């Protein structure tokens, strides 16, 4: 009897393990195809030249620069607001109606579909605030989209700071604001940075929010001011893969661009994961 029950357990655990493995396999398959088919497209010229011959040849420099400038704008918006929100929620607020409302706002903001952010960015930033299709409008749209990620990560980082730190500082006669500025924030800093990198990597890979707010089909210019429109890596993949008559001939460029985007996003994530596990080890000691 017990033998049969243990057999069932072995079989069931086998299935659970297979499910866990399947995720790794799926990820590997995608990365494998992007790598094997995109590798041949990667060259120095590909990374440092603008597209040529109506985007059937040449490189992706404007897309890389565009994505970087959109990311900078994003972090400029979401980091200060996100960290300040987290400070309020974790350091000042007591449980009450205002906190419930703020949390409701953050949770629901996190669930808003990316294309709806795009619609909002188009209607508000581009049209009402007259920014047009620009780095500013695209970055603001991505910024409010990443806000929940940054708030969540910052809150977690602030929570990890032991209360004894705060008490020691207060006992020395510091005010709450001085304590936060000089004791709590420095201690939480690595955690906040980790969260910001994760938020930024999400912004870098998003397409739908910038389709009508920041990114354009083609522009030979590199971004000069925040009111310039830009090309962006994710949008470039979409454009090459779906629009125009040369979809088949530019396949290797599509794979190449996708590979660059994956390397960029995974690089940021790995950095954050490593940073975080280092921090955890440090905290344990």
């Amino acid at each position, binding site marked *: 009897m017990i033998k049969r029950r243990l057999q069932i357990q072995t079989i069931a655990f086998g299935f659970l393990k297979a499910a866990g493995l399947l995720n790794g396999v799926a990820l590997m398959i995608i990365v494998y*195809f992007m790598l094997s088919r995109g590798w041949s497209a990667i060259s120095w010229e590909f990374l440092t030249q603008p597209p040529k011959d109506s985007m059937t040849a040449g490189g992706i420099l404007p897309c890389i620069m565009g994505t970087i400038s959109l990311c900078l704008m994003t972090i400029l918006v979401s980091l200060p607001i996100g960290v300040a929100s987290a400070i309020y929620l974790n350091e000042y607020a007591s449980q009450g109606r205002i906190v419930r409302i703020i949390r409701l706002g953050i949770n629901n903001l996190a669930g808003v579909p990316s294309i709806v952010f795009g619609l909002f960015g188009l209607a508000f930033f581009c049209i009402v605030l007259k920014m047009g299709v620009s780095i500013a409008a695209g970055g603001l749209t991505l910024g*409010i989209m990443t806000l929940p990620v940054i708030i969540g990560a910052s809150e977690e980082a602030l929570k990890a700071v032991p209360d004894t730190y705060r008490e020691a500082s207060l006992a020395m006669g510091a*005010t709450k604001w001085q304590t936060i500025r000089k004791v709590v924030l420095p201690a939480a800093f690595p955690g906040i940075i980790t969260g910001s990198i994760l938020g930024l990597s999400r912004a870098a890979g998003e397409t739908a929010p910038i389709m009508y707010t920041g990114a354009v089909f083609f522009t030979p210019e590199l971004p000069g001011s925040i009111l310039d429109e830009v090309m962006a890596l994710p949008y470039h993949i979409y454009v090459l893969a779906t629009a125009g008559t040369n979809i088949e001939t530019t396949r290797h460029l599509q794979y190449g661009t996708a590979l660059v985007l994956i390397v960029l996003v995974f690089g940021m994530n790995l950095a954050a994961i490593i940073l975080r596990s280092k921090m955890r080890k440090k905290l344990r000691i």
Partner: protein
Amino acid sequence: MKRQHIDKTVQSGFLLVALFSITVLLLIMVFLFIEGLPILDHISVKEFIFGKYWYPTDDPADFGIFALILGSVCVTLLSGLMAIPLGIMTAVYLAEIASPRVAEIVKPIVELMASMPSVVIGFFGMAVVAPFIQELFDIPVGLNMFNASLMLAFMAIPTICSISEDAVFSVPTALKEASFALGATHFETIVKVVIPASLSGICTAVILGLSRAIGETMVVLMAAGGAAMIPGSIFDPVRPLPASIAAEMAEAPFRSEHYHALFAIGIVLFVFTFIFNLIADYISHKFRQVGEASL
């Protein structure tokens, strides 16, 4: 005295910034309604939601989004069919069975899955999966509901997995030990004690995962085929709500009927995900796992 004064000012400053998120959420609603509601001057709510024909550029144009809603719902349900079991099984494996060393490797993999840009997954569905399933199932087009669901499942799994893992992991050890003491095997304990005890967390995970799938744009835009018709089989092309917005916004003249109709689709999409989130919020608060009283 002056220091205390500064402290009060600083606190109100932080409160103001913290209210930013909810303000943005309200602004999003306001602008969706300002730009979306004018479509109701031309067509009733019932015709809009239940109209079967979506021909926004014809004259006279048809703005019925029933086929689009059905496309979204079908794609999401089919992807849920794949992602829910797989996500929960992975979560149970990570929280209960895997050794810490294995978990240390599998967890970052799940995180990397979550960070994979949606456009890359859509592109993969288009360039690799489409020709593959076209040949495998001998069907005319590879860009269809099945393809899009498969790709969406890949995106929903990390959400489902990481939230359920938290839930499973936080089941008190005392509950499990009580079950072991009664002679149950580890697997029996998982099925009869751990999963029932973490059910509210798992439900939240499933709802948030599905909410992510229904709002996902690039995957359905690139891999679902894009035909605005009511699907007859899982190998029919569909045109979910987000795909319509993304594909048509560029060609819709500013503040035309078509433009307003697309914003109205945005409202529908927003309402869908908003309800999903409220349900998830409700479940996680109402059935919060409180210590050992949760069974």
